[in-house]
């Protein structure tokens, strides 16, 4: 027979989001918590992110990924109410909060939870999703899998590489490859600006004189068995390659850092509504999704620049789940966010009235000297860019219920080129 266990809270995913949410829920008084992680150990992607730059916002000191994860593992040890299940994969979540799991240790186990926090994180966009023409040889890696192979497994994955995409992982891996003696011929970016943090462009590329080609892409992959070279071309304003201006770069490895996709297959099964702008669930100020008793936080909700923000947000979700289990925060009043000029996404999408809500806002294109408007609130920003989160905490007095929504927009900027 199928084994069913009743618990207060199931947290799906033991990365930074899941760990912070479980700890916060436990601190807020939730007793029976199960934290489920599919990998053999906690930490999610952090153990392979051996570089520094984590923790400045949350711990006020600079940590590496493994160190950041370690802080939370120590926290978890203080909470005996949190039962950690590693090597366990969630295969189904239902709207009535049944969570079906599989593991080598226990086989198939079903949890009936009173609340669920979704913290599955995100995955990398593969080659097929961006439809690069050419052959299908060995030597094509997404940046994250390359990072895993090098930093956890200790393998040498190639000798000469080209990186497509200037997101943070792509930039970090350009430096990492270089330090290990692998020649990085170029980092290519489809857009006219880098998608990563400026500091990473400086310390990962400029420090090592790795060329960054903005407005360029890979137009073909060559090599029958192993990558032999890639064809590269600049793109026009419509982002279409100008093949006649193209050139080839010889390499045995192509690294893709072309975007992250929140992993919401389980959320969809549970009937949670997704926001097409973020790829994650529509949530309110409590990170409560559109399905009663199911919360979502971390990169499953929206892709973050900084793990520190994941921790902060997930603690909100953890405390909110605790409040929900006490019978609070049900049927709270909220207003939807309405994205205006130069706004790609805003999280949370539903703002609970009568309290302050920290917002994560993303611009569509880079601009200088803009005015950020959120409801009745105003704030000047020197630079906005799609690669960097815009932070704003909307206060209760900036919200007018009579509007029926909260407008968010960037006004009067100068386009940055």
């Amino acid at each position, binding site marked *: 027979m199928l084994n069913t266990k009743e618990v207060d809270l199931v947290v799906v995913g033991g990365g930074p989001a899941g760990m912070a949410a479980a700890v916060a829920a436990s601190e807020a008084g939730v007793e029976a918590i199960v934290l489920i992680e599919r990998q053999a150990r906690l930490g999610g992607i952090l153990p392979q992110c*051996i570089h*520094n730059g984590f923790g400045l916002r949350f711990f006020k000191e*600079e940590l*590496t*990924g493994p*160190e950041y994860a370690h802080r939370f593992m120590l926290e978890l040890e203080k909470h005996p109410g949190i039962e950690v299940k590693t090597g366990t994969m969630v295969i189904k979540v239902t709207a009535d909060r049944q969570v079906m799991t599989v593991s080598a240790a226990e086989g198939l186990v079903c949890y009936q939870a009173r609340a669920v926090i979704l913290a599955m994180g995100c995955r990398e966009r593969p080659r097929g999703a961006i439809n690069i023409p050419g052959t299908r040889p060995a030597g094509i890696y997404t940046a994250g899998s390359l990072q895993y192979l090098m930093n956890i497994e200790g393998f040498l994955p190639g000798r000469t590489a080209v990186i497509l995409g200037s997101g943070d992982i792509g930039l970090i891996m350009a430096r990492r490859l270089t330090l290990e003696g692998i020649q990085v011929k170029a980092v290519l970016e489809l857009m006219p600006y880098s998608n990563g*943090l*400026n500091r990473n462009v400086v310390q990962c590329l400029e420090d090592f004189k790795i060329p960054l080609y903005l407005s360029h892409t890979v137009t073909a992959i060559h090599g029958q068995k192993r990558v032999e070279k890639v064809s590269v071309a600049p793109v026009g304003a419509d982002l279409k390659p100008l093949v006649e201006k193209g050139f080839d770069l010889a390499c045995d490895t192509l690294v893709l850092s072309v975007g992250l996709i929140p992993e919401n297959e389980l959320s969809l099964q549970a009937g949670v509504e997704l926001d097409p702008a973020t790829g994650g669930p529509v949530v309110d100020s409590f990170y409560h999704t559109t399905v009663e008793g199911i919360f979502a936080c971390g990169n499953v909700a929206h892709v973050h620049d*900084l793990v520190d923000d994941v921790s902060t947000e997930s603690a909100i979700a953890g405390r909110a789940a605790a409040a929900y289990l006490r019978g609070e925060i049900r049927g709270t009043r909220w207003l939807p966010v309405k994205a205006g000029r130069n706004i790609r996404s805003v999280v949370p999408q539903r703002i609970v009235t009568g309290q302050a809500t920290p917002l994560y806002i993303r611009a569509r294109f880079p601009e200088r000297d803009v005015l950020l408007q959120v409801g009745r609130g105003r704030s000047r920003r020197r630079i906005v860019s799609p690669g960097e989160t815009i932070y704003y905490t909307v206060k209760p007095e900036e919200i007018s219920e009579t509007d029926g929504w909260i407008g968010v927009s960037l006004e009067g900027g100068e386009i940055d080129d």
Partner: protein
Amino acid sequence: MTELTCIVCPVGCRIRVDRDGNGLKITGNGCPRGLTYAREEMTAPQRTLTAVVEVAGSDCMLPVKTKVAIPKAKIWAAMQEIKAITVHPPVTIGQVLKEDLAGSGVALVATGTIDQDEKRENL
């Protein structure tokens, strides 16, 4: 005039540095750490180096870092020393693995923990 992107924190302020007689005039930094960064970057740039080292008897790696930033010019020499290191478990997070890495005066420390009997973590 030099324009720098501050790498102290993820905000990435754009700092302007102008020669001002014998000194430097630094503007655009969002905080005092930016001031220090810009001054150092112009005179003796520093970077924290992170990498992995081999673990005897295991096929997973141990992550490491320089305890504080080291001179940028010493990064390659430091990397060569790191490549030659093999640690023996157990290793605890924060443990010093090598003092005075590449003559920088800075220690190399473990940023992860490896138990005595840890062979492989995944699978």
